[in-house]
């Protein structure tokens, strides 16, 4: 547009190379930024749109794209009437709560303790807690499979040693517990591994928030005679509220999509694997065991709706509390 106007004003025809240079300049930013958009379109946008389309189709994937058949809302109706889907939702919520709530209840006081007690060695301590978060899930599965082993696991060895102690021995089970083979214990065992893995992540979040709380607040509270416990309840916790909101939101989103830990810890062929079959695992099984990719996509979108609404409820709870405090 500018080029045309310039030509009209001067009445001369601009030299060809100049025009080329000008166009290059005009397009250069888009070319430089294009890798992101291309990658986003290929790996995010297309799968997203394809998955929506797929959820309205029945598709036996091994027969190729030609085998798709439009079925409207059938996949959604079918998923909602599937007992395994409802069961998987129940498992997901159970594991999300059993592993998610303790993560924060432990991470907040632990972060405060590390923040106040460790000076030079703080980073080392944080690193130790953070290590499980970056460890390969396969390695975790191997270690915990060994630890939880009914006959050869160290956890049962420890429990049996405790059971042999005088006085308190009666509090511990005398028989080995089948942690990963019994429907009663498998859920707590898997929840513990998730808790262990993500505690360090939340700890880092809370420690970073603790570092920006003004020290003046604590100094003033100390002068006013507030105890350490009072300082924690009336200064630390309220100041951490924005970070608690973020961390809880991330936990909700992460825990409702749980896949790796129960998947790698429990043998798929085991009858008890259904006790820790999360919705994400059910999506995987529906797609790859049943070969029903359409229903798997529909379940994914139902899961998305659940996560979005839970996050919205969480947002409302936090913002209501904030409004109440502002008044």
């Amino acid at each position: 547009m500018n080029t045309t106007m310039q030509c009209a004003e001067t009445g001369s025809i601009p030299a060809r190379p100049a025009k080329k240079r000008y166009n290059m300049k005009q397009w250069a930013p888009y070319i430089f930024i294009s890798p992101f958009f291309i990658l986003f379109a290929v790996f995010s946008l297309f799968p997203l749109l394809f998955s929506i389309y797929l959820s309205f189709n029945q598709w036996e994937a091994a027969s190729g794209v030609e085998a798709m058949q439009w079925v409207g809302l059938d996949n959604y109706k079918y998923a909602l009437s599937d007992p395994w889907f409802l069961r998987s939702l129940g498992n997901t919520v159970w594991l999300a709560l059993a592993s998610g709530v303790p993560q924060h209840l432990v991470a907040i006081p632990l972060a405060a303790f590390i923040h106040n007690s460790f000076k030079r060695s703080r980073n080392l301590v944080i690193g130790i807690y953070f290590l499980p978060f970056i460890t390969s899930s396969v390695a975790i599965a191997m270690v915990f499979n060994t630890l939880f082993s009914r006959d050869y696991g160290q956890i049962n060895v420890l429990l049996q040693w405790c059971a042999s102690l005088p006085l308190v021995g009666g509090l511990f089970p005398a028989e080995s517990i089948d942690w990963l083979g019994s429907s009663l214990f498998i859920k707590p065992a898997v929840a513990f591994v998730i808790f262990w893995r993500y505690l360090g992540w939340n700890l880092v979040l809370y420690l970073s928030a603790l570092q920006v709380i003004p020290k003046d607040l604590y100094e003033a509270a100390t002068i006013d005679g507030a105890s350490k416990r009072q300082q924690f309840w009336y200064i630390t916790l309220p100041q951490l509220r924005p970070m608690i909101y973020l961390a809880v939101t991330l936990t909700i989103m992460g825990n409702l999509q749980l896949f790796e830990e129960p998947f790698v810890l429990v043998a798929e062929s085991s009858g008890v694997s259904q006790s820790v079959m999360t919705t994400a695992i059910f999506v995987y099984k529906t797609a790859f065991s049943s070969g029903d990719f359409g229903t798997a996509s529909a379940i994914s979108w139902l899961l998305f709706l659940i996560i979005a609404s839970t996050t919205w409820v969480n947002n409302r709870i936090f913002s209501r509390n904030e409004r109440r405090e502002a008044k």
Partner: protein
Amino acid sequence: MKSSILGAAPLAALTLAAGVAAAPAAVPPAAVLPALAPATITVASFPDLDRAVKTALPLWEKLYPQVKVKLVSLQIDDHHNSMTTALAAGARLPDVMAIDFRYVGSFAESKGMEDLLQPPYGAGQYRARFVPFTFVQATSSRGTLGAMPADLGPGTLFYRKDLMDKAGIKESDLTASWESYIAAGKKLKAATGTYLLAGASDLADIVIRANLKDGEGIYFGDKGQVLVDSPRFVKAFELAKAARIAGIDARTVAWTGEWAEGFKRDKVASQMMGSWLSGHLAKWLAPASSGQWRAANLPAGALASYGGSFYGIPKKAANKTQAWEFIKFMTVNKDIQLHSLKEIGAFPALTAAYADPMMDEPQAYFGGQKTRLLARDTAAKIPVIRVDKFDAVARDIVNMELESVLAQNKDIKTALADAKALITHRARR
């Protein structure tokens, strides 16, 4: 049809180059081999089947130096998931696809695989050379053949003779009937403290697939009806429950660390599975107890097929001619089939291999027993079992209900009725 290497007389004289120390005595003259265009074919496989390909490659390279083979191997479930995804996308497909028995129903049913009965393949001409049920397993409801059988798993009872001797148990006590098998388990537990079974579900699993009628499916009937509330399943669940109550199972799940440790630490004295388990026992499950294991027929004269492997060609494969020659090389070639038996314990699906003297060889791991003869006789009697693309789903559901029966005392009839309802729903029948 192009002339096949399999019909070439000189090949019979070949000694396999790989694993078999001596080099081939003679490579057939080029005239008897089909003229294959130069190419690199991709063979997608999984452990341990990939070793069968690896060790056969030197001979393949001698026969067809112009056709290179690129072997890609993933863990068994990852491999099949990856192949499903590749078929869905119609891209990055291998030329030859290995398929495990558990997945052959869904892959054969898929329209993404070549029908090997059609020209230029004409696999029908080889049908009579294979154990009959293997071809049926890879045949779709449309009558197409999705894959060629490579090996099979005649159901076998493996047991520890030394432990049985200690408890005064004879082989006939183990095999006479399911009841005598459980009674022997009690005797063994009392005398040695050893479990007879790794898991009660193993017992149910083999009873479920034993003594089927020709043409019957494990979980689905000929009209697609769900069979899981039939007397066969009731009996399987009752026996598993009886084994659990008798305390003769170690309550472990196959292929887990705990399951493997049971064999290593002499805590489990028998295992019912496909004959190919012999390779796993000798190589990594229980190498220390070499000479102590024996193989026998399944209890109560049960006949069951337990696993097997196949090779197919995706419709969108790039080098189908070369791929088909390679599949024939792996499946219709007696020497290669026997080589796989020797290397990985994969029992040949090709009956021509059954007449080989190798079948008669005593196995040191089994105290000199001729276990291959036992597997051969079983294979010949196994009925033709129809597979269904929802077999894997049905198996999951049945396992879940069995666990409820074993661990939570759920009523067997209720459990099977629940399983039937759920399978009917999942298979949309």
